[in-house]
């Protein structure tokens, strides 16, 4: 806004001389280096402590403390502890919890900037820049700070990392807009100068730059709890609730049974501790890590483990357009010649073009495309596929060059044969580019003038039009046809260029003629119009499929882009974000020919919302849009607006995934339940803010991620069901011990052998379970209703399978005692005598007498047998947990090999722990079989009678 001299004054600098070194040093000391402060890293020790006391671990810690208390009580009593609950290994909680993902993405190369200081041009590191420095930038440079331009020649900057606009913006010295983001005379830190040169004054450095402010906006957005964390918390409450209520219940029972209060307290603690699923936390973490690893193989790098599951519960994906949905490069999409529109192949790896190339008009057009083009391939890339080669030149010229290379072959050779004699490059006033060439026909001594540019400007200069190779006068009818085609291609959101040529008459322009581009001593009107080419940043070929998969998985895909509404809508249509049949309010208005206001908004399923409209909207209006329309495109949005949109979606109760690559996306990435950054195109800020990084920038990877996320939720459910089941089998002995006063059926150490020994590998193995059918045809889970651990799961595990296991284990227990001489009837009520150290002639059912040590030895045998029978039944439990609905035989008993590793490890560990004694191994087998059969029956009824009472109560 200020004039150059005002600027000089304001920043105390001089355009020609720049700042003095001393002054610069002063400012540098005041403002600090020109670099973004990295987000504050939490100290490792804090992280470690958080890990140790966070969420689930706290349950283990409380369990451990209780164990010590009860141990202390027993120690004080001087009695040998009835059940030594001392070894609650809370340490397992963080053992498995080593985060797998790399922590930072600091790959920034030291940037150099050309600065004028002390009246000298100096190359210096960009972080030494201070406000008031005069910097020079040229095409290819990264802008080193926020710069107010004071001189510019054809300068264009790529603001995509900041605003998401895919097209380079031209920059000049003119003040054009109040909004600093829109005005032309400011270039922003971290954006790239694509072409041209410019000089400017540094006006902001470091964190005070626009990008710095956005970055701080991102760090200001708090991290939300992940859905899985909420589920685990819920699970902890549930387990704690069950443990405490059973504990208190039995405390009351034992008190009323005239146990000593102190003993009752120990029972209480014992019950609570027995309920803590010690191995679960490790299992959950390992499952998450496994999935994260699996996803990394599929190009999804997961930074935050819990995010794996979040993706699975995602119900809305807010996707950025450029680079995620599209290939982020201009490609020729359509051609118009001979009054006809042809489509070109826009896929990533095109090698040929399918359209009709027989027309002589095409020959002429292709010549113009080839010749009137300044872009060139970097040398030395002959072996690369054409689409992958690096080109020097702007986006449209690159597109045309590659297109020509694909269709015609060696473009450079064609250009060499048609030597260029004169050229006028594209500029914004002419809006055309022109060049004059010799022809490659040795008999044809004429010069060929080729021109391309904005279609309407080109048409103005034409008097004829080429139809099927013949020049025909350009009458109003043909002009009309041109208009229609132009509008149509423009309506597709494509950038259209017009092409025309003229063979200069040999008489007026002999081969010795010198062309002067300044005086334009050659005709630039009455040319022959040849055709139109339109270009677009085409969608990735995998995207439409991925979008439709998201649809069938009940996930709403919303496009949020900084791009123009028309382009955005066109891309949305082509990838299926707006499906073919749905209409926006504007479309309906157009179809019915009524004003937009009269259209019933409920009828429109799609909506394209402009950033400008969004600005004036109240939150309610935004909610309404998000609610009422299933297909939404937000165009021309600012970073703040992205944030608002994400928050709006979250208000609907949705779990929102946001994809993005630019710095402008980072606040939204952070705010989202799961932020997904692009690995290739993504900026560091975006990657830092995101929970996940797509290494191949491919939207389709998200779908894989969703599938994996849902799978892990299902598998966690199975794992928890598996783990909870045996808790009852571990708890029941204790309860019966209290009530019936039988010898203790299972010891604490044995319980830990199960929890941390035999059961760990199998429960991890469930994480490898393949998906049951329909995983991607289900709606995303409702995070309020579909809990990880729901009532059915708990009841089925605790009250049905758990009880069955207990019964099986007790049969084994009684068998052991009976076969050793204590018939079941003699065991009831013997606890006090049995545990009395002074009684060494305890009589069994056969009249034999047992010393205390012999009884204890027998009791240990009982522990072993109980342990073995729980293990055997857990094998059955593991097998039934493979599926929740399908029969095991549908799922395939052997498809998940890891399950078998789990089963064998389980049996192996049990064998080692029992010193390879196979005694009592088979008593519980009938019960294991029963568990399997019963669960098959349950699943059969669930499949057979969906929605029935059985389904509602038995399906978890």
């Amino acid at each position, binding site marked *: 806004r200020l004039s150059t001299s005002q600027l000089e004054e304001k920043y105390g600098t001089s355009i020609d001389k720049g700042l003095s070194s001393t002054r610069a040093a002063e400012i540098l000391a005041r403002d600090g280096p020109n670099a973004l402060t990295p987000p504050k890293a939490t100290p490792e020790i804090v992280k470690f402590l958080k890990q140790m006391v966070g969420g689930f671990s706290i349950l283990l810690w409380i369990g451990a403390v209780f164990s010590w208390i009860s141990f202390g009580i027993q120690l004080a009593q001087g009695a040998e502890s009835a059940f030594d609950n001392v070894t609650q290994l809370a340490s397992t909680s963080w053992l498995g919890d080593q985060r797998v993902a790399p922590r930072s993405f600091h790959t920034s190369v030291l940037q150099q900037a050309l600065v004028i200081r002390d009246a000298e041009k100096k190359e210096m590191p960009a972080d030494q820049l201070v406000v008031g420095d005069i910097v020079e930038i040229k095409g290819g440079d990264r802008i080193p700070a926020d710069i107010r331009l004071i001189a510019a020649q054809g300068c264009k900057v790529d603001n995509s990392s900041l605003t998401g606009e895919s097209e380079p913006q031209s920059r000049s010295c003119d003040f054009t807009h109040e909004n600093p983001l829109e005005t032309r005379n400011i270039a922003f830190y971290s954006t790239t100068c694509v072409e041209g040169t410019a000089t400017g004054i540094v006006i902001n450095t470091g964190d005070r730059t626009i990008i710095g402010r956005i970055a701080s906006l991102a760090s200001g957005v708090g991290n939300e709890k992940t859905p899985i964390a909420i589920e685990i918390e819920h699970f902890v409450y549930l387990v704690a609730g069950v443990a405490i209520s059973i504990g208190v219940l039995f405390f009351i029972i034992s008190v009323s049974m005239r146990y000593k209060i102190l003993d009752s307290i120990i029972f209480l603690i014992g019950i609570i501790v027995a309920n803590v699923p010690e191995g679960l936390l490790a299992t959950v973490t390992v499952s998450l890590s496994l999935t994260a690893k699996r996803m990394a193989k599929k190009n999804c790098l997961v930074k935050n483990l819990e995010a794996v599951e979040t993706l699975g519960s995602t119900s809305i994906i807010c996707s950025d357009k450029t680079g995620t949905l599209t290939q982020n490069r201009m490609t020729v999409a359509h051609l118009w010649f001979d009054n006809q529109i042809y489509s070109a192949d826009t896929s990533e790896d095109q090698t040929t073009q399918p359209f009709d190339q027989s027309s002589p008009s095409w020959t002429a057009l292709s010549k113009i495309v080839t010749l009137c083009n300044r872009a060139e391939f970097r040398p030395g890339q002959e072996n690369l596929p054409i689409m992958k080669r690096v080109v020097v030149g702007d986006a449209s010229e690159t597109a045309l060059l590659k297109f020509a290379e694909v269709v015609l072959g060696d473009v450079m050779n064609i250009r060499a044969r048609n030597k260029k004699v004169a050229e006028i490059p594209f500029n914004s006033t002419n809006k055309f580019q022109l060049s004059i060439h010799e022809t490659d026909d040795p008999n044809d001594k004429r010069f060929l003038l080729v021109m391309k540019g904005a279609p309407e400007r080109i048409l103005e200069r034409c008097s004829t039009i080429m139809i099927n190779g013949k020049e025909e006068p350009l009458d109003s009818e043909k002009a009309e046809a041109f208009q229609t085609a132009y509008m149509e291609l423009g309506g597709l959101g494509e950038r259209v260029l017009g092409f025309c040529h003229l063979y200069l008459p040999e008489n007026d322009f002999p081969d010795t003629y010198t062309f002067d581009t300044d005086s334009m001593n050659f005709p630039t009107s009455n040319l022959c119009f040849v055709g139109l080419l339109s270009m677009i940043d085409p969608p990735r070929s995998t995207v439409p499929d991925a979008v439709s998969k998201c649809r069938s998985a009940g996930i709403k895909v919303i496009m949020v882009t900084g791009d123009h509404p028309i382009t955005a809508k066109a891309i949305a249509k082509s990838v299926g974000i707006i499906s073919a049949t749905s209409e926006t309010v504007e479309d309906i208005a157009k179809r019915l020919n009524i004003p937009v206001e009269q259209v019933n908004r409920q009828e429109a399923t799609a909506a394209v919302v402009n950033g400008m409209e969004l600005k004036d909207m109240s939150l309610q209006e935004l909610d309404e849009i998000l609610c009422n329309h299933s297909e939404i495109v937000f165009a021309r949005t600012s970073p703040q607006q992205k944030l608002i949109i994400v928050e709006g979606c979250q208000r609907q109760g949705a779990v929102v995934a946001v994809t993005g690559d630019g710095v402008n996306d980072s606040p939204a990435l952070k705010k989202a339940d799961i932020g997904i950054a692009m690995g290739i195109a993504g900026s560091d800020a975006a990657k830092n803010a995101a929970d996940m990084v797509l290494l191949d920038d491919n939207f389709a990877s998200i779908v894989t991620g969703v599938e994996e996320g849902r799978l892990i939720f299902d598998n966690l459910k199975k794992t928890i069901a598996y783990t909870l089941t045996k808790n009852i089998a571990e708890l029941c002995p204790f309860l019966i011990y209290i009530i019936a006063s039988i010898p203790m059926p299972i010891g604490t150490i044995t319980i830990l052998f199960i929890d941390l020994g035999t059961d760990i590998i199998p429960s991890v193995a469930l994480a490898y379970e393949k998906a049951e059918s329909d995983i991607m045809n289900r709606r995303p889970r409702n995070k309020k209703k579909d809990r990880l651990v729901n009532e059915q799961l708990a009841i089925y595990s605790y009250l049905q399978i758990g009880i069955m296991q207990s019964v099986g284990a007790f049969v084994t227990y009684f068998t052991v005692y009976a076969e050793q001489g204590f018939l079941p009837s003699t065991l009831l009520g013997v606890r006090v005598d049995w545990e009395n150290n002074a*009684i060494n002639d305890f009589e069994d*059912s056969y009249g034999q007498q047992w010393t205390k040590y012999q009884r204890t030895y027998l009791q240990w045998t009982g522990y072993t047998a109980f342990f073995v029978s729980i293990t055997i039944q857990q094998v059955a439990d593991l097998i039934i947990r493979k599926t929740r609905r399908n029969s095991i035989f549908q799922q395939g008993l052997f498809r998940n090999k890891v399950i078998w590793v789990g089963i064998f490890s389980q049996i192996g560990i049990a064998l080692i722990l029992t010193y390879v004694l196979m005694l009592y191994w088979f008593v519980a087998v009938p019960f294991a079989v029963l568990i399997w059969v019963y669960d098959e029956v349950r699943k059969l009824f669930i499949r057979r009678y969906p929605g029935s009472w059985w389904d509602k109560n038995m399906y978890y």
Partner: protein
Amino acid sequence: MSKETKKPFRQSVAEWRQFVYNPNSGEFLGRTAKSWGLILLFYLVFYGFLAALFTFTMWVMLQTLSNDIPKYRDRISSPGLMISPKPDTALEFYFNKSDAQSYAEYVSTLRKFLETYDDSKQSQNINCTPGKVFDQNDVAVKKACRFNLSELGQCSGKEDKTFGYSKGTPCVLVKMNRIIGLKPEGEPYIQCTSKEPGAVEINYFPSGGLIDLMYFPYYGKTLHAHYLQPLVAVQLAINSNSTNEEIAIECNFSAFKPGVRTSKYETASCCRCCFKLP
């Protein structure tokens, strides 16, 4: 995720009340009466079935057992020893010979214990050949050997009704635990040692602490109903010049005379008895 605001207390109470009983849907604790009925019925059937199954498998298991001898006896391979009287506190005798009250309980316990060995109770028992294992494998009705109380000498309670407690020479009966089928080799005997040598003089009845082989083997409660296990009485004569107020005695069982220890029954150490003197 929308920010969850803390619910006001009244609202959460109302929600709880709604959960406990919802008058609109007639739901009690989240289920209607019919739903509760169904679920209770289901669990009634389910647990009924499980109980039946449990009973059945237990029954099957019990069918595999013999009435006479347990299936396995590997957890009690060696017999334990036990003493009578058995004090409440961990095997500590505390008495004063001049105070009859202090040992009255020991005496009555001993008396009661020896009642089963009374001649009148042993009318069915036979006199067996001493020094030989009384093998009755082929006999259907196993006979029990007579254990004569006179074997216990001064500790039989016949001469001294206070079992020596009043004289400061207390008697303790040591018995070996019954184990079915156990046949000691050699000559089993009980030996007690004092921690402080010379502080106490130990007498055994029968002499040498011998247990006669004729009382072995034992055939179990059902087959060998009138079996009486052999006893060894240990009488302690505490040296009057002993300064110790506490005398610890440890009794061991050995199937062999000292010096021939190669058997599978090593020593079964009994309770360490501790005599506290006033």
